[in-house]
């Protein structure tokens, strides 16, 4: 039982990961007092992927540390934090398409849009729970091992805090607007792959519209839960 729950710890960080797109301060920056609105001096479109992760993490980590309401789990604050700091650097369409898999091509554009919205809401709700659990962790971004001409890279980071260091990896792809995250790995489990089976089973059982309904029901459930909490 505890073994299974140990596996579930990764959920804490999926949210941390996606929400903060890499809580990366290179190693030991607990004592750093960066200004609250720290922004990278190099525009994001020109940064290397690991520098991007590091920048995003620094920004988000600072924001979370300074704002106690986020730590208490204020869903709205977390959502605005995620929307401003992280969403511009995440390719949600690709993430949803990968999770839905081969049925993506069968979905109408309207269905695709709704799938994307619902999936995004689901992950946002999961985040607000996980981000509220950030205390004083630091993130260690590993050196990037990729060729300069690679269009897709994996950035590996580690979260250090209480207990064992936790592996946190990101898949990024190069787009005209810069590098974008399209998958996250916590403790060895990739987010997209972990949703693929569930989505495929649901679609073959109740169709794409059925999956959209299930997702939106779950989101409503989570919304009332957060509002009541």
């Amino acid at each position, binding site marked *: 039982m505890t073994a299974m729950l*140990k596996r579930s710890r990764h959920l804490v960080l999926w949210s941390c990961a996606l929400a903060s797109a890499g809580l990366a301060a290179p190693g030991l920056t607990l004592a750093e007092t960066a200004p609250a609105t720290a922004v990278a001096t190099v525009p994001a479109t020109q940064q290397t992927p690991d520098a991007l992760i590091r920048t995003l993490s620094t920004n988000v980590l600072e924001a979370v540390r300074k704002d106690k309401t986020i730590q208490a789990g204020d869903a709205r604050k977390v959502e605005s934090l995620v929307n401003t700091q992280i969403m511009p650097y995440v390719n949600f369409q690709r993430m949803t398409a*990968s999770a839905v898999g*081969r049925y993506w*091509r069968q979905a109408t554009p309207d269905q695709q849009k709704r799938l994307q919205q619902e999936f995004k809401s*689901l992950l946002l709700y999961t985040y607000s*729970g996980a981000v509220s659990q950030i205390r004083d962790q630091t993130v260690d971004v590993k050196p990037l091992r990729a060729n300069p001409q690679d269009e897709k890279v994996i950035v590996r980071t580690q979260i250090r805090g209480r207990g064992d260091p936790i592996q946190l990896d990101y898949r990024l792809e190069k787009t005209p607007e810069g590098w974008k995250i399209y998958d996250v790995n916590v403790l060895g*489990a990739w987010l997209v792959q972990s949703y693929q089976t569930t989505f495929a089973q649901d679609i073959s059982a109740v169709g794409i519209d059925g999956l959209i309904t299930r997702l939106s029901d779950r989101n409503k459930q989570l919304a009332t839960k957060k509002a009541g909490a």
Partner: protein
Amino acid sequence: MTSVACVKRSRLAWASLCLLGAMALPGCATDPNALAIDPYEATNRRIFSFNEGLDANVLKPAAKAYDAVVPDPVEEAVANFTNNIKDVWSLTNLILQGQGAGALEEFMRIGVNTTFGMAGFVDVATSMGLDRHNEDLGQTLAVWGAPDGAYLVLPVFGPSTTRDTVAFPADQYVVPASLFREPRDANAARAVQVLNARAQLLEASELLEDAALDKYAFVRDAYLQRRRNQIYNGEPPEVEPTDDLDASLRGAPLWTARIDVPLMKVQRTQISSNRVVDQSRFFVDQPEPVSVQLDDTWSAQVDVPTLP
């Protein structure tokens, strides 16, 4: 002689079959693969429900009470002590796997933590840069070549695989409870270890509830990925789909073929691929010949090429 004809009645052969072959995403754990790794799904689901019930009714309330009473530093100390004992088992397995550098690190961890860390209650080694290697007999067997087997959910203990279940008695043996001779003390030690671990995961388990649509499938997929990750020590060979998704996002088929069917009356049409979605579009996971059989009178075969 073939000719293109319009389909007027369902008994007539189709005028043409346009086959859209597209590679399904490799690594996509859709139904065929899920069944392969989880042949005992029905039983597993039942045991999973049982475990969930046990957790909700017994373990979680106890862990919450434990968490409320025991201060965080003490919980951490108990966890560190447990990990130090487990490090001995990790060391054994690292040696068995032939990981010399890891074994040396682990050996130093045990030494440092037992002496400077007061018998393991303080984790000095991690702050010195010596990270834990989490090795067990299941991973050793995998490195030696044993395949996963089937996904199994063990009562009380949760997700596992056939191979890991074989290694299970050994992996469960090296714990602080083994230090105690009296069964009563050993049981108490085991209870503390379990409660402590559960208490530290209270927040994470709530997130899991929120995030998963189907908790059973979610835990299974995440567990199997994590296990693979552990076996390869954080760098598993990647099975990422590549350009087929880009093509699908652009909406273009990767490959098409056209088969002209003769005008004839047909009782039965058969397409020999078990992944037919509908009669004009289907998805192919790997190159294979696709054949169309119309009764016993006419057939054609097309080879789907290897797609990038």
